[in-house]
């Protein structure tokens, strides 16, 4: 019985080792896929869908200084640091990109605001080696411009609290710890 346990123990350790080795191998393979030193078919860049193929564009935004922010979804920690080049007509615009502190898959690039609706060429280029990682041609849509008259208004009208000093409402308007919605 002792021998059986020993064999079982060794088998489990070997299995665990193989599993770890498998994941390391897979990770390296993934890293190689995104590696800047190897030549692979160029990844197409598009807007993110419900089952996104990364990297993809999440949204376009604008800050008070008139800068445009382009949000990306990437593979996360494995994905190399990159910058964004947008070609409009014959002019190139460079956007500096940074990962958010919270989630390695969220990256945003900041630079000059460009016109909405016009088809532009987007290049995701690695910081290390200037290799084009992804490329796509599409127009900017859904940008929220930072002028009060040009906002998109995604939320429905609010409940009026006219003439009342603001305070917490007395009845729940949104169930706490809700269940599955049908």
């Amino acid at each position: 019985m002792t021998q059986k346990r020993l064999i079982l123990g060794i088998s489990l350790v070997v299995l665990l080792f193989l599993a770890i080795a498998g994941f390391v191998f897979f990770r390296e393979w993934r890293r190689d896929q995104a590696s800047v030193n190897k030549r692979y078919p160029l990844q197409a860049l598009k807007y993110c869908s419900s089952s996104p193929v990364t990297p993809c564009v999440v949204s376009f935004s604008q800050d008070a200084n008139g800068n445009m922010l382009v949000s990306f979804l990437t593979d996360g920690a494995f994905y190399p640091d990159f910058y964004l080049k947008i070609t409009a007509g014959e002019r190139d615009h460079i956007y500096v990109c940074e990962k958010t502190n919270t989630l390695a898959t969220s990256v945003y690039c900041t630079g000059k605001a460009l016109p909405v609706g016009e088809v532009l060429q987007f290049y995701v280029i690695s910081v290390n080696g200037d290799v084009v990682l992804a490329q796509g041609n599409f127009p900017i849509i859904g940008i929220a411009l930072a002028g009060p008259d040009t906002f998109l208004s995604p939320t429905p009208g609010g409940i009026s609290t006219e003439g009342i000093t603001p305070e917490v409402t007395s009845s729940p308007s949104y169930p706490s710890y809700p269940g599955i919605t049908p």
Partner: protein
Amino acid sequence: MNLFADIFSVLTNHWQLIVSIVLIMLLSQFMLGFVLRKIFNERLHTEEYFALSSAGWILPLSLTSVIWLAWGIILPARIGAALLLIVLAALAIVLFIQTRKESVPGLNAVPWSLLTLLGASILLRFAFVSRAIVPLYFDSAQHYLIVNALIRSLDSNELPLWSTLTSSYYHIGFHLLAALIVSFSGASINDVILILGQVVVGSIPLSIFPVIKQETQSSAAAIFAVLLVAFGWYMPAYAVNWGKYPALTSLPLITFVISLAYRTLTETDTLSRGKSRGSMILLGLSTLVTVLFHSRAVVVFGIVALAWILAARWQRLSKLWGGVIFFTTLIALVLIILFIGTKEIFGLLFDPYWEKGLLVTTGVLFLAIFAQWRYPRLAFASLLVILLLLGALLIPIQVPGYGMLTWLDRPFVEMMLYLPLSLLGGIGLAGLEKSLQGLTHTGTIKRFWRVPYLSLLFIGILLANALAHYNLYPAGCCEIVGRDDLVAIDWVDKNLPAETRILIASTELRVLDTPQGAAGSDAGIWITPLTGRKTIPWPFQSDFSQQATYDWLCQMGLGYIYIGEIGATFDNESLSSQPDWYKVLLSMPRTKIYQLSGCPLPQ
């Protein structure tokens, strides 16, 4: 196929963290199994040891995290965590070598089935992580804040002061455990909370196995109960959508304590004095650790103990009185269910078990008849537990510092009801098996309907139902952070002054008859944990176009207003309609950050 692709993507993206957590889980499990084996020797089957140690694996690890906290005064958190885990691993190796010298029962199909179930259960739960941007709902932001505070304190070789963690939070067990894992793995707090949470959820089902196996000696019935816990109803696993990680972590521990108490009580006469004492010490320690994870576990232990004692007394009654008490309990149960149904605040309580789990609950109620017939004490105790859990929702208690509460709250009872129901289902199936066995012996029914087929039939129906209805992914209700929110919060961190105060949307927290204050209702609740900026919660329905609102905001000295991408957010139109009062700083398709402008200077 998407499910497997999603699970695989989580495995590849978080493999170091997953391997770390699973390894310490196995170490912890092995050590607990060793202690249990020392106490109970050959009184328990291999599968019972495995299931018990799977239920209580958090126990040794929690004790380690408490030692790590104490070491925090002398050692940096990361070094302390690494050293402790090396000691833990060395101890496990020594214990393993020692167990090799002892004879242990052989392994049959049941322990392997349980191991497979545990592995599959944990793996499947990783699908949730693939679609979660950060841990869900507002509770998770609080967990992040506490874990972060713990790590920061220990990094500066200080014991964290209670007040630095939070003034109103007391379930510190989960945060200590998460902080320990963050320290030694180097992973981000959010990743640790997400992955650890899913490993815990995956280990909950196995915890029910020992009680049913002990009571019925039927492994098939116990496995059926395990599957009931895993996929029967959307609870308890759904509670990850609420960010109820401390309460979830207490669930396998609660079942571990109940199983251990049950074993200790039933083996009192056969255990030596020393072993009996050892069992009691382990029981006491497990109870303490469980309470450290969720203080309301005390109430659950009280309810279970009371139900068990009452069921024992009930069994000693005459048939007539026993019948009267049994039917009175049933009527009381029906009445309390009807009464709770009339209370709007408890409206969601039965949703997982009735509205969304009718088929499974009906099956369990059918099996409960056989449970009551063949295993009356445990079945009656389970009924009493349901009755008392529901009763605890209605009985008020004055808690110093917290005001008037009730013994248990709606979300926790909703999470807990799976336990008595699964017990009834498991022992009910064993009862049905037993009844049919009697009939096959007398030749009343055909051989085809013999026991193994019956268990397979029930397990098959349960799994088919789960395949059709069970959702392993995050629920839309509780996702309050979108991808743009992360960019916006990062932008806040890099662009707004550190001492600023930001207005964020909130909703009323209400799980008891009386409101419990405000709870963040969009990603604004994550601003303080992620950037350190102070936030002021305010009802999301507020109308910012009103003069009174603007005056109040100015009086409060608020600098900015945050509108999140999803959840219950402020109304953007009421802000954008007053450009002189609210200047837009960051405009994303749905997420916005406004600056309050034109406020009169304070006199």
